[in-house]
């Protein structure tokens, strides 16, 4: 059992890959935004890579352990301490009954992951323990942790002293500029060639009006092809309006002139075009980007994106633990 002393800004239970199979009913997958760091944290404490763990956003929590166990913290550096002493990240550490893990604000990256041997043991909802804040389901009561709550943990036999090979860690952007892969489509034919060039040349600023449903980007105006401007009225009046369609997770959704990357808790359908899609292999970068940081987009083919995904999947295995 783990007691929540301070909840942090938004700390919530997530599992990987999340709530899959309910997209046609409008339920997003949820799950960890940086699934690379998340999976490594679970491996360190001897859990399956998908076991439920805590995602901490921007400012981490303060937790007291009511049982001795083994934990690991990966992802953003929130200067964790255990009973006041610096706590090493990217390795498994034994904690004793009564120990207090305290985390501060993220110095590098945006989201940290706390995995506990045995995994977080909250009741699954539609097959997943992931928290979907907007609808108030999953996790603990459907929302982020609150002070005073007690979190149930499963039984595990984690070993302390396991580390992630340094070259197996995701490389966070030290200069706060993220180079994010994108695949063209599904609605790339609505944007004209100038519009495509401008999108790929621009340093987009991640807006503070971003959350787990969407990442808003500030940047230049978009320009369109005739598909956007000469269309049947049922599409809607804005050039970026289209007859409501399914949205893939990672879609760069053009709401009017504002691109919004639809992330883990995003809508399943709607009436705006998606000229580009961020492939799953690059989701971890979105999870570690903070508002006001810069995103640059690098167009890759579907095949290149999937090769990258295979590479990360291969890293998120026991072979990366020493």
């Amino acid at each position: 059992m783990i007691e929540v002393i301070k909840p942090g800004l938004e700390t919530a239970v997530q599992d990987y890959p999340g709530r899959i199979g309910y997209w046609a009913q409008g339920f997003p997958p949820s799950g960890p935004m940086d699934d690379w760091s998340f999976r490594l944290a679970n491996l360190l404490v001897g859990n399956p890579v998908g076991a439920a763990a805590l995602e901490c956003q921007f400012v981490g929590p303060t937790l007291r352990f009511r049982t001795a166990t083994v934990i690991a913290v990966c992802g953003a550096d929130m200067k964790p301490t255990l009973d006041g002493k610096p706590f090493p990240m990217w390795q498994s550490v034994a904690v004793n009954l009564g120990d207090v893990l305290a985390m501060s604000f993220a110095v590098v990256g945006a989201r940290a992951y706390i995995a506990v041997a045995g995994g977080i043991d909250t009741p699954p909802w539609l097959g997943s323990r992931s928290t979907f804040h907007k609808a108030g389901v999953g996790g603990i009561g459907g929302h982020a942790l609150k002070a005073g709550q007690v979190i149930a943990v499963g039984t595990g036999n984690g070993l302390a002293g396991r580390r992630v090979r340094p070259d197996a860690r995701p490389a966070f952007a030290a200069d706060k500029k993220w180079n994010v892969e994108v695949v063209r489509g599904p609605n790339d034919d609505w944007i004209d060639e100038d519009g495509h060039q401008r999108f790929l040349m621009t340093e987009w600023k991640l807006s503070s009006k971003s959350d787990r449903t969407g990442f808003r980007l500030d940047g230049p105006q978009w320009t369109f092809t005739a598909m956007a401007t000469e269309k049947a009225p049922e599409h809607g009046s804005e050039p970026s309006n289209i007859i409501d369609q399914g949205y893939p997770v990672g879609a760069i959704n053009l709401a009017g002139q504002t691109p919004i990357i639809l992330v883990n808790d995003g809508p399943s359908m709607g009436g705006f075009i998606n000229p580009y899609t961020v492939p799953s292999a690059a989701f971890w970068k979105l999870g570690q980007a903070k508002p006001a940081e810069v995103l640059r987009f690098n167009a890759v083919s579907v095949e290149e994106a999937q090769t990258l995904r295979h590479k990360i999947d291969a890293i998120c295995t026991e072979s990366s633990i020493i």
Partner: protein
Amino acid sequence: MLIEFGNEMNLELNFMAQGLAGTIAAQKIAGIVETAPSFASLLVHYDPDEISFKDLRQETTALIRSLGPSDDIMLDSRLFYLPTMYLDRWTRECVEDYCNKIKRKEPDPEFVARINGLADTNQLVRVHSGTEYWVAALGFWPGLPFMMALDPRCVITAPKYNPPRTWTPQGTVGMGGASTAIYPVATPGGYQIFARTPVPIWDTEKRFSVFHDSIVLFRAGDRVKFMPIGDEEFEFIEAKVKDGTYIYNVVEYQKFSVMDYKVWIATLDKDRRF
């Protein structure tokens, strides 16, 4: 992968999208995780470790060819009778709040009646409640149905709010484009609103048996018939919902034949409104 069947909003394209979704589910193609039909397209979620994009495109292209014309499509289709209060005080208050805080506009029922050439809001109620609605897709919010009128004599259209509302009461019925939607919970929204149902369309606690295998009421391919009710009936049903004794009025056994539907609409005079 997104498969687009066309560039307009009509039932024909949605029948194709739902027909393909049904075929994919029946064939259990390895690597296809799930599909989500929308008005005129089908989104396919696949696992690239099991099927490549190229093979997926080949497989789905072959399936679309094997589907043939939409006339042959038969879809499981439940019919839900949904008591609904038209021209209710809650949606009217919501529109008034929008007018006071965001932007002045003509009240939604009057506006929709006027732009569709209807005599008054009473005729709007007759026309809007005079047809079964086809659940074309679910989305935007979990369980939110996007529906289209099956009876061509009842097809009306409405532009969306610009800017959108910041709130909409739970159970509100509204229209945008040629689509009618029900808001499962209080959310922001952009549809023109003029009715409200006391019947929950999602139930996270599964208090009602109709939710035994899903927490959302509808599936794509279901049909909905709005049953106009007054204040007293609304309150009666609301109380039944509250104490858990409300009985959902659902017809479970039906199939929807696209061909039979087309034969029927060919007999109708589309210019005569109810």
